[in-house]
């Protein structure tokens, strides 16, 4: 049986890969995908900790996060859509009207 440390290592890998993607990608959709990977890493941690300590609260937290993430993604994609209508771009480099 894999140990808790193995699950945590996968979570850490997922978190770092997601962060890397979020900071390296140019299109907003891809950035958001990276962020979702980070959220999944946190969720994996929560469920693993809950299972290994025989507690339920971690699983509950993970359920909440899944619901919140779906709502958040919906709002984010609506923002993207509304911006795309007025600017016809989803590349972060092109979104630069506001400057000092």
């Amino acid at each position, binding site marked *: 049986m894999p140990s808790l440390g193995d699950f945590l290592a996968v979570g850490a890998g997922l978190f770092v890969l997601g962060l890397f993607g979020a900071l390296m990608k140019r299109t907003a959709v891809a950035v958001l995908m990276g962020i979702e990977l980070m959220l999944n890493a946190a969720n994996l941690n929560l469920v693993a900790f809950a299972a290994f300590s025989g507690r339920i*609260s971690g699983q509950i937290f993970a359920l909440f996060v899944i619901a919140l993430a779906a709502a*958040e993604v919906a709002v984010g994609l609506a923002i993207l859509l509304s*911006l795309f209508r007025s600017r016809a771009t989803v590349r972060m480099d092109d979104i630069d009207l506001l400057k000092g």
Partner: protein
Amino acid sequence: MNLAALLPAEILAGTALAVLLADLFLPHRDKAYLGLLSAAGLAAALGGTARQLAAGLHASLWGGIFLLDPFALFFQTIVLGAALLVLGVSLPYLERWGRDDGEFYALLLMAVLGAMMMVASRNFLEIYVAMELLSVSSYALAGFLRPDPRSGEAALKYYLQGVLASAALLYGISLLYGLSGSLDLSVVGARSAGSLGVVALVLVAGGFALKIAAVPFHMWAPDTYQGAPAPVAAFLSTASKAAAFAVLARVLLTAFPAAQGPWQELFAVVAAASMALGNLAALGQRNVRRMLAYSSIAQGGYVLIALAVATPTAVAASLFYLAVYVFMNVGAFSVLSFLAGPTGGEELADLDGLAERRPALALALAVFLISLAGMPLTAGLMGKLYLFYAAVQGGYAWLALWGVVFTVVSYFYYFRVLRHLFWGTAPPRPAAPAASVPAGLALGAATLATVLFGVFPQPLLQLALHSLGMLR
């Protein structure tokens, strides 16, 4: 008992639902009633919270998930007060915009609800959920002016950075949960010692720092404050910031008193960097809204001095400062919202000769700006004095000195605006829209409070000190 203590929050949620429902049936010309309904709900919630604060309520609800102590109630009052002022200014703003009133008010009320729940939480799950409610509503509000790509850009930048920070925050929480086996703030800290706990705490603090717009998590703030509707910018820079500060203070002071040394140093650096970057970047701005955005990054830096010093005096000073900051900052953003179109016309040159065209507005803006700068007879000065004094007392004299230096730097950009207001020549232009009664009330109240708390700061300071009693 549980439900009665949460009555203000329930009123807010009910008002939000009522606004959404009424929006379906009201004819277009009567949409202003939605604003009045929201104002009534906010005022009722504010009254209820103020009464709880006056009664010294200290209740632990639902097995300690909620803690309605004076500290939480103080911040709830700040948030509700800020929201009420913002709402007053939103009424004429939405009248000019001419649609989507119901959605705006409902989202604002739900954002306030999130902020209220957030400051009263003592459980990471509840903190996270409430903060997401505040965030999701704020993202949508920032992008409210759909046809204007600047509003969309403001929303997208805030959204992406906000979600990124909340993912980091959540990962930090998950580590703390693993270390301590609990989500309860009063338990987590004691069992999360060690270097992994520090890593987790930094991730958590980063998530809150983004909402405070503290360096290095400030990148979204100038763009979002400039591009979002002006009343939304006012809300984000005050209520949202105050709520995040409250949670951060509660997490650090109640859950992690043992780890004080390292995070005090960390916040000393963050506060110093925020003051420096905010004030220096504001110097170069021609757009007044963007200048105010950088100024509010700097103001966040002043408040964060409290977390570096971490003495009761310092935290009480930060409570005082945040309370008066609400009045002056909402006020300043509001004046701009009257002058300009939805998101434009806020260059320095646009303010030329405002004192001749709109003397009352110009005077109000002047009061807010000299208070933000920290001149005598304003609440801003008293707040800064208390903070710097607490810093010196707490052994952070260098931070106080740093703050004084950058306060002097800030005079340059605040007074540049004043010069345009009073000594610029007014260009011929169409008359700005007349101010409405609710907006006049909100601005008048903000102006009055800014001066009043500058002359008689004692009662508010006493209240702030008293609110700390329960924080240990």
